[in-house]
């Protein structure tokens, strides 16, 4: 490891330690059972939960592994569907300035709507809470990827498109060999933002819907005012978010190019 990396790591760990100690001091000063639990209490709960992550006591009580798995499953379905749709539509908009300008106002209106606000509408029309949750994910993963793809495709240098025209590449070939690779850095940037907002949305949606999922887990533990579990769940959610983002960061590095 380079000297620089070591320094960064040390500083990071130091900040973390300071925070944990302050937290413990603050929480430890209150009587146990009341107020915010400290890191030791959270650690004890974490240990318990991680020891049996896949237990199943019926639909309302499952291990943390199963809960996270359920959430990630929903995330995968909604996110992948949204990404596919966003890339396709984004390419179309990027290639056609006319289409882009015509459709853009609608996008601007729909974009700021919180994905959770769509939930009642979905529940009412689709009549299935599981599918509604997936659609909420879909709505929250759509916009960043769409915007970035359209921008990335619209910014492709004329030269590359000219070469594609001269070579008389068929549209599918043009898409795969020229357009998508050229716009790839922008597309992946959009995907990274989208996965973040999708993960945020799934937790919130599950709090409303119930069933199995980390959001439902948080809500259930909150019912019982079991704050150690809630904090542990928050840390788990954050960790998964980091992993998702890191995965896409890797993809981003592979698809980057210098002009």
């Amino acid at each position: 490891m380079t000297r620089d990396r070591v320094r960064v790591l040390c500083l990071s760990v130091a900040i973390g330690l300071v925070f944990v100690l302050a937290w413990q001091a603050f929480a430890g000063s209150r009587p146990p059972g009341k107020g915010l639990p400290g890191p030791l209490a959270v650690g004890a709960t974490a240990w318990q939960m991680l020891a049996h992550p896949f237990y199943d006591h019926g639909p309302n009580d499952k291990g943390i592994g199963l809960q996270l798995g359920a959430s990630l499953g929903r995330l995968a379905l909604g996110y992948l569907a949204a990404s596919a749709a966003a890339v396709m539509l984004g390419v179309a908009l990027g290639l056609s300035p006319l289409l882009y300008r015509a459709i853009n106002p609608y996008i601007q209106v729909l974009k700021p709507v919180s994905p959770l606000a769509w939930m009642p509408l979905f529940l009412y029309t689709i009549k299935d809470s599981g599918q509604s949750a997936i659609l909420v994910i879909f709505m929250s993963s759509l916009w960043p990827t769409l915007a970035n793809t359209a921008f990335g495709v619209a910014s492709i240098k004329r030269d590359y498109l000219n070469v594609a025209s001269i070579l008389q590449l068929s549209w599918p070939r043009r898409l795969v060999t020229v357009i998508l690779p050229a716009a790839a850095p922008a597309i992946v940037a959009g995907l990274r933002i989208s996965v973040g907002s999708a993960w945020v949305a799934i937790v919130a949606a599950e709090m409303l819907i119930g069933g199995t999922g980390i959001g439902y887990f948080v809500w259930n533990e909150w019912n019982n005012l079991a704050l150690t579990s809630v904090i542990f769940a928050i840390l788990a959610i954050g960790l998964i978010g980091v992993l998702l983002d890191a995965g896409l960061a890797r993809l981003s590095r592979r698809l980057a190019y210098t002009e």
Partner: protein
Amino acid sequence: MAFLEIDHVTKHFPSHDGPGEVCVFREVAFSIAQGEFVTMVGHSGCGKSTLLNIIAGLERASGGGVVLEGREITQPGIDRMVVFQNFSLMPWMTVFENVRLAVRAAYPSWDRRRIAAHVQRYVEMVGLAGAERKRPAALSGGMRQRVGLARAFSTAPKVLLLDEPFAQIDALTRGLIQDELIRMWTAGRNTVFMVTHDVDEAILLSDRIALMTRGPEARLAEIVDVDIPRPRLRAALIEDPDYLRLRAHILRFLVEGTRAAAGDGHGAPATAPLAATPR
């Protein structure tokens, strides 16, 4: 019927300041025989790159048209490959992949092995053996343009269009690549139309040189033959009286054009066209 006919091509652009249009060039007419190497020289703003784009099919003429082997050109096509001033290589592809993109497009029925062999041949032909896996960002300007040449020649195009291909390459490397170009052209016997502002380069490489007046409203002033026999060696050329005379004529044309432009603004050459000099 000529192989490639530029038939009274006119080009207008919408004007930047104020309404109406600006005429870049008007009624440019000449033809190119198969296998000929023709260069166009002129001031900046005379629209020579625009004319090249029209021949390539990347732009449309406002008046007149371009006819290749009896058929009018309206779209870009692989029969008219272009070598760009700024190389236009796909930066996410390696050298090999860049050339292969063209070969695959030119020979869709070939299998992978045959395509790979063909690509390899041209990569070696431009002297880039060993650099196949590099991406353009890792190459110098000269090397990148060699890839451009390899890409263009590998498709055996009917017409090769070169748009100031060596303008961005340093003087020392330029000579080497010009030789590369001649070598490949001699082997491939393609028809070439090149645009350049380098007079020496024009004389060195071409069979004929078309001279454009200054824009706007540029016109084709004259076309001079370059009767110097090939192969043309740079060292010998410097002493050659035909070369010197031709060079002087063209430079005078360009200079007069500047002076004339400063005067009456029309850019009509004051010099008389150079008659073919008997040997």
